[in-house]
């Protein structure tokens, strides 16, 4: 009787640990340059939304902006200034600017680096009695003087990856999931000492 009770207690714990382990995908970092760059002012380019999710680019843009600002390390350029420059240079928001255009944007914004990216997947699916969001995102960082890519990070997550027990912990909106994904990407960049501003 005691052994049976013990097994009933242990099995859910093991199951929970397995589930928790499955959800811990780390962002994948790809470096294109090993030279460190002094980064004090950051420009964020409009994200390219390759999904059908309406306004997904703006949602993740503002989450990324607020997370960078909240770390109080960098001066972040205004979204409105970036949009104005895109308009002035005739760059469509759903296209990648050329290296030459990136140089002009960075210089005009006085930015040390530019962050751009693509939303590869963004959707919400109803699973049982909860909503499970999915996001697949790639962020790239560009050198302001050359317009070339310094590094890029790919990350993919879904709401259930954050499950703690039962439905608790599940991210049930793309905004909440986007917040966590961007947080993890920025944490990786911090751990790798990629974004540093030393006055």
């Amino acid at each position: 009787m005691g052994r049976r009770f013990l097994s009933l207690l242990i099995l859910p714990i093991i199951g929970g640990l397995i589930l928790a382990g499955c959800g811990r995908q780390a962002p994948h970092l790809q470096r294109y340059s090993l030279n460190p760059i002094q980064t004090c002012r950051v420009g964020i380019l409009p994200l390219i939304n390759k999904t059908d999710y309406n306004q997904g680019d703006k949602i993740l843009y503002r989450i990324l902006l607020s997370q960078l600002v909240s770390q109080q390390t960098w001066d972040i350029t205004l979204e409105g200034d970036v949009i104005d420059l895109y308009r002035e240079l005739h760059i469509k928001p759903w296209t990648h600017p050329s290296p030459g255009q990136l140089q002009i944007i960075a210089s005009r914004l006085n930015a040390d680096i530019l962050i751009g990216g693509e939303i590869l997947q963004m959707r919400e699916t109803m699973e049982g009695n909860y909503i499970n969001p999915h996001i697949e995102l790639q962020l790239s960082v560009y050198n302001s003087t050359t317009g070339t890519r310094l590094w890029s990070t790919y990350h993919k997550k879904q709401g259930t990856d954050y499950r703690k027990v039962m439905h608790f912990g599940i991210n049930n909106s793309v905004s909440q999931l986007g917040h966590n994904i961007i947080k993890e990407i920025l944490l990786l960049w911090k751990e790798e000492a990629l974004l540093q501003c030393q006055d």
Partner: protein
Amino acid sequence: MTILATPVSRCYAMTIAVLPVEDLSQGDNGLNLAITRTLEELLADKGFNVSSQAEVITFMVKNRVRRLGVLSSPYIYRLHTELQVDYILLASISQQRTAPPFALNLNLQLIRTKDARIIWAKTTEQSDVNRVSILALSTLRDKAEIEYQVASDALSTIPINTEQELPIIPQARIEYVQLSPQIVKPGEKVNCQIKLGATTTDQTETTVSIFVGEQIIEAQYDSQASAFMASWLSESNNKQYTVTATVSADNQESREVIIGKYQVDSQPPLLKLRVRGQELNGLVILQKKVRIIPALQSPEPISRWQLTVHNAEGRQLVNETGSKTLPPQFTWWGQEQNGTQVKDGIYAIELSIWDRAGNWASSQESIKVFRKKPEMTIAMKKQPHTLAVALNYYGEIPLAYWRLQVRDKTGTILAERSGSEESNKIILPLKMASQKSLKYRVYAQDMLGNYIQKDLTPKTNKKIKSNDEEKDEDDGNFLASVGDKKIAGEEVWAEDF
């Protein structure tokens, strides 16, 4: 009692304008006035002097601010000067799910108007799923309650005074640049217009210097355009030039800024025209159509193109033009611009293109229009058990092959012969019970694929009529003809076609 009744906002005297909250859940430029009001109330409670919505809306209308959720520096500086606000709060609802499970995501940005700098930002999410507790004590079910809770959470860490932490750095800011053209020929004029931001105090005392290659150009202030204007002649070397500028004014920082790039291009595009079709003696022949394929040896964008077709006398029959994109191929159906078919003969097809700098390139190819059908005469002599046939070909294009079939009245083929050269003596064996109802079919095709097909019926002692007016069974424009012939002999008949 009077002291207690004084609003808390007077203590800080920091003025803030809350711009109408953009609601992304409602699509592009969605508006949420309820949360806007809630944010205003909460900020007032925190001691800020909040500008009225009427003032903010009036400012937006006056300055033609059409977007919500974002604002560029020029408007932020104008807000500082016109409404005397120290900060603006830009807010957007990223997501709002009104059906269970309820979710609300609010994004806030606090921007200091003196230097248009984001000094604080926060994103707050709230969902009734995450709020469910064991006894459902803290569950939020009311939409307004959740909105208030989210706005309150979002503003909980808003800084009151940031000037000491983040020093204000005034900048002479380039607001707008127009550099044209982007691609020029050597020695052509390049124009530049620069508008400076509102932070530059007196623009007449400001110096704007432009650097390009070895040249330094001082831009002149144009009070009518409220902009600095400059123009210079482009360099002679074919390459891309980066244009930078510095702005110098009293108490203003002067920094070299890349304002644009332009390409000097004196090389005309290398164009080769290829005409695809059946060739004869080195010339492409047009029967129905020819495909004209332009090929650029070094592909580059073009500004416009022109395709013309001239006849041997030099008269222009076709003139097609287009801009920007060069079609991958053209098709000419042998027609003039008005749709009439051109006569047989030699024609010159010419394609001209202009690149973005205006460099011109052209390529020409000649083709031959030839639609004439093969011409041949056939003479037959029927004997008791054989049929003697003589074929004479008159076509300009060499004969590819011919075929002769003898059929009975039911259409069954009784004898057949074919060849690739004309022949004066073809003997076909005939072993039929009745030879009176026989039919003959002749098919001939030249090297270009032009063909004739004719069903013949023996005629006796009868003058063969010219078939100038006869129509071909297949395409309706059968034109082959030979002069009338008279064949003597009781069982001999002949036909031209």
